């Protein structure tokens, strides 16, 4: 489809141009837009910054702070805390060493996200390759199907999905969460959008040298697709890290749930450590964002249709 050529081409050009522009002339922002942008950036970062800040408060201070919530008294305000009475790693110590429950759920989340990534690594690039570099009967119909499945909310097929998984004997096992996510249409779409924009000459050069379709895939396509594969991996990890609906429905066993589902339930039991829990929960996504920020930007620009 020609349309995607256009969008990938411009995305690439856009990036190059913007870096060149940056080198040539970085303008000073007009004061008003500078003010607004800074204000909004600060608002966006406040929740993240304060989560980390509060995670270094002593447990007692946090519990008494949180106990101030829910008062209906007109004359009373909650304090606004900026610095702890003393910097403390006690919250982290508690959730990491004293109470293994948090760590176990954290590991569940890592396992789910990791297993999904591994599976996607096998399935998504291959399928995207077939959908973008081959001509065969029904290709466009198949791609259209992927698009429709992509926009459907999870709840639409929830009930029949449960029955399908039960028929396959997967319900209530970790595979019920992992397997459907491996074939997630969105990442298929994303990688396909990138692959279809790769100029034909690159692949043809490989063909000229006598490489078969598999060799072209491994030695030409995969290296060229590195940015989008990184973007898909980062976005997919974030997706699995955030998923709530699927484990909530597919798993009845509480000890198999990922952190995303259980996080708020374990927090109500032990308020003093809520912020260390949240900070640790955010940390992997923060590192992934920082490391892959350029790729993620590319991924979002390519996912126009999501």
């Amino acid at each position: 489809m020609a349309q995607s050529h256009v969008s990938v081409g411009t995305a690439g050009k856009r990036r190059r141009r913007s870096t060149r522009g940056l080198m040539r002339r970085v303008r000073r922002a007009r004061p008003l837009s500078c003010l607004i942008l800074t204000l909004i950036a600060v608002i966006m970062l406040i929740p993240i910054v304060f989560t980390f800040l509060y995670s270094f408060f002593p447990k007692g201070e946090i519990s008494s702070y949180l106990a101030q919530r829910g008062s209906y008294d007109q004359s009373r305000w909650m304090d606004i805390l900026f610095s702890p009475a003393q910097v403390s790693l006690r919250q982290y110590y508690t959730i990491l060493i004293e109470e293994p429950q948090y760590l176990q759920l954290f590991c569940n989340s890592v396992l789910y996200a990791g297993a999904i990534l591994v599976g996607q690594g096998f399935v998504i690039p291959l399928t995207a390759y077939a959908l973008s570099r081959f001509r065969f009967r029904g290709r466009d119909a198949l791609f259209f199907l992927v698009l429709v499945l992509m926009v459907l909310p999870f709840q639409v097929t929830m009930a029949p999905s449960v029955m399908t998984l039960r028929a396959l004997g997967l319900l209530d096992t970790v595979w019920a969460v992992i397997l459907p996510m491996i074939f997630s249409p969105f990442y298929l779409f994303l990688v396909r959008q990138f692959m279809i924009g790769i100029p034909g000459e690159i692949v043809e050069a490989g063909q000229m040298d006598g490489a078969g379709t598999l060799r072209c895939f491994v030695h030409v396509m995969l290296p060229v697709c590195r940015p989008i594969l990184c973007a898909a991996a980062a976005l997919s990890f974030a997706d699995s890290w955030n998923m709530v609906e699927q484990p909530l429905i597919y798993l009845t066993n509480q000890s198999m749930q990922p952190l995303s589902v259980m996080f708020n339930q374990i927090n109500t039991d032990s308020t003093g450590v809520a912020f260390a829990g949240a900070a640790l929960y955010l940390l992997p996504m923060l590192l992934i964002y920082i490391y892959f920020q350029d790729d993620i930007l590319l991924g979002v620009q390519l996912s126009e249709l999501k």
Partner: protein
Amino acid sequence: MFRKKSVWLYLLPGLLGLMAFYLVPFVWGVWFSLTDGTIDNRFVGFDNYLRVWQNEVFQLGLKNTIELSLLCAPVIFVLSFLLAGMLRKPIAGSTFYRNALLMPYLMPSAAMLIIWLILFDYGGPVNRLAVALGFDRVFWLEGAALRVPIVLLYIWKNLGFSVVIFTAALQAVPESLYEYASLEGAGWFRREWSITLPQILPTAFLVFVLAVVNAFKIFKEVYFIGGAYPAESIYTLQHYMNNKFSKLDYQDVTTAAYSFAVIVIALFLLLYRTKSVRQGEAA
């Protein structure tokens, strides 16, 4: 482009998975919504739909879902348009601004809940700000006002996504058009109106429809703040489905789900049509 039979080998794993976990449940679900769920499973046509649509709880969920998405979408649309306009030209710190905006997109909403509950507490910072600006305090975490923290959490998480798409569209407008227009003596307003607007209109439409479709799926945020049986003002369609589902009333779940899907798919087709129309013009 290859024309080889080996393509089926590459397609096989993905195709099997899509069939098993997406397509079969989808088709099975359609069948479900058209049968009565008894032992003989008779075909009842659209009876289920008529019954579910008349259900008051379903109507409440549908109304809330539509209202929530109509609260989220315009705010995201307008804000991201303004921000993208400011980020169009490279300015000092644009990487920082962009990262600050996009970072929440990856952050798990569950971890944000605790901060949100503090921010919107009756004695919390948001009410302090409101009082400082001369307004009255509000019980944000009760009744109809609950929508505000939910919508804001959703916007916080999803704003950057639209900003990035808008910014890319603005930057793709050829610089030469503006230079030419300036030479012809067009002022700022004239340039924006006659060049920028028509050039980004397709993207603007896309961002708006996406904002509506995605906001239509709003559930996680509501679930975290309101739980499985939330206040009436934030009871969404997905709550209705989840609760019917836990009562094993699969007919009603799928019927509600497909009523919902029809709306989403209709919006999507509208988008797809306009996209291919645009590409047709470009070619």
